[in-house]
């Protein structure tokens, strides 16, 4: 793997007033780690500490074999020498420079480095050709963020930090920018750290997840394995609660618009005609969309009936139960009322069928490249 040595390892401590930030995590390379948590939990501070814009009270930051900060050894590489690209929430384009000059700002200063991305390549990748002669004030929010992304990339970073780049955009602009971020994640062989408090963004972009709250890391790991963790559950809220499965599209029926998705040993029919066979995708099964049956269902419009057995039941609120079902290797979550759980005598080990409407999965299928299978792309020299 080209960028394997550029793994980011951080361990940070910073106290300001009553707030203590105490985090430790690793960002694999290539890959995209999402720092996920509510506003004010210290995500942006973490980013600024890694970039060198703030100084930790104690801790260690290493990128591959390079130590960028070590309080004990008294090492502190200045921000301008760290080669860490930053994309800020507010883009921060230089207002007195054209788009082209903004893009070239870091590019020129990287002239003594072995450049791994070229100007034309970035312009093409982010669709910037039409914007080059414009001034930042004449750009839309989405365009600004694209330019900021390009500017950061052209500085030939060894690590890319993205601080809620979509937060200041409306829904349409987000949708416009997301595919570019997905492309970057799949084409670059550098680690990326992405700050977000939107779980959907995390599902679309992240390979790994660091869940934060009040300055601390609650849980970290691969996205699919973490979506069942109680720490994350408590944070995403009942509307977005659900299991995330990763699989490969086996076939797409252009006529019906249904795609067959192989997940573990089973198969799911999903409404996702924009996907292509062989594509790796992530699908979120919302807990409140799932229906449980204790007999093989017949005569229903539901397209998916996955056989499995209950591996855990937890009390969510007074009247709802959260049921974890093992459907052949993958585990899904279903929300049922207490009354239903009692009627069906749901209990650990019981065989059930999980019913999922193919329609309910529309919009919950996300293209996703596994870090292990990331295509060879631009990689920084070590």
């Amino acid at each position: 793997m080209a960028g394997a040595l550029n793994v980011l390892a951080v361990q940070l401590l910073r106290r300001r007033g009553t707030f203590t930030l105490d985090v430790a995590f690793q960002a694999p390379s290539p890959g995209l780690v999402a720092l996920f948590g509510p506003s004010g939990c210290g995500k942006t501070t973490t980013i600024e500490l890694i970039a060198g814009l703030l100084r930790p009270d104690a801790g260690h930051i290493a990128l591959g074999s390079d130590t960028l900060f070590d309080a004990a050894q008294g090492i502190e590489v200045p921000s301008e020498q760290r080669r860490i690209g930053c994309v800020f929430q507010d883009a921060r384009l230089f207002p007195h420079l054209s788009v082209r000059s903004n893009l070239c700002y870091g590019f020129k200063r990287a002239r003594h480095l072995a450049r791994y991305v070229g100007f034309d390549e970035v312009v093409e990748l982010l669709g910037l050709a039409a914007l080059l002669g414009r001034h930042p004030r004449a750009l839309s929010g989405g365009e600004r963020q694209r330019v900021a992304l390009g500017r950061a990339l052209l500085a030939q970073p060894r690590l890319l930090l993205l601080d809620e780049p979509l937060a200041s955009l409306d829904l349409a602009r987000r949708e416009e920018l997301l595919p570019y971020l997905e492309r970057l994640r799949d084409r670059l062989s550098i680690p990326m750290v992405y700050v977000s408090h939107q779980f959907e963004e995390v599902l679309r972009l992240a390979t790994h997840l660091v869940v934060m709250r009040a300055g601390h890391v609650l849980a970290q790991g691969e996205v699919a394995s973490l979506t069942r963790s109680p720490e994350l559950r408590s944070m995403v809220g009942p509307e977005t609660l659900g299991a995330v499965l990763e699989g490969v599209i086996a076939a797409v029926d252009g006529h019906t618009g249904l795609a067959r998705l192989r997940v573990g040993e089973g198969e799911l029919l999903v409404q996702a005609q924009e996907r292509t066979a062989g594509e790796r995708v992530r699908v979120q099964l919302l807990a409140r969309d799932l229906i449980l049956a204790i007999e093989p269902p017949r005569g229903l419009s539901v397209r998916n009936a996955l056989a499995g057995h209950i591996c855990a039941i937890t009390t969510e609120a007074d009247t709802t139960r959260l049921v974890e079902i093992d459907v052949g290797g993958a585990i899904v979550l279903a929300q049922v009322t207490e009354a239903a759980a009692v009627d069906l005598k749901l209990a650990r080990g019981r065989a059930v069928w999980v019913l999922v409407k193919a329609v309910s999965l529309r919009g919950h299928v996300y293209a996703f490249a596994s870090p292990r299978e990331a295509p060879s792309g631009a990689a920084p020299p070590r």
Partner: protein
Amino acid sequence: MALTEADWQALHLSVSVALRSVLASLPVALGLAWLLARRRFPGRTLFDAFVHLPLVLPPVLVGYLLLLLFGLNGAFGAFLLRVFGIRLVFTRNGAALATAVMTLPIMVRAMRISLEAVDRGLEDAARTLGAGPFDRFCTITLPLMLPGVLAGVVTAFAAGLGEFGAVITFASNIPGETQTLPLALYTALQTPGGESAAARLALMSFALGLAALAGAELLARGMRRWLGR
């Protein structure tokens, strides 16, 4: 009403002294603005007040203090004469020094306000793009505070054209050397039958001041358009 040789000389001298004073105080004002806007140090408030003192002290007192410091027997004056052979007192450069001290607060104030308005986030962005401190200042901070710098320079220049008390105290009133427009005007008023000379000099002062201020406004407007604000 034709201008006499002496009128032209006073005009030329005024412009020359004001230009020299602006050139001399520009780097000092930039440094002071930076200190006051960006640095936290003990005694900052007192230092701030000290920089602004010329605004409230009688100009004659400033001239007198300059005489004490830069006169031939003053600490700096003796040093400059001995080491560099430079004499400031009763010279054009001395007039420029007096003017510079008087207009420094105006310049510092304009620069400081514009520096405080520069978004530090942009400097941080430049940092992550590989720009060191001096590089950042020249390519981001300075261009963004340029409207303030220019406003400060032009206002200080315009004010410098009319500096009287400090100049006459420190540099005296020597025709062709330190007799600027206001000094020539004062002299004309003190001379019997100097009314027409005084009127000419007054009109010239008016025109010069107006031109400088209008020029400043136009410059600022162009600058704002360039910066997209």
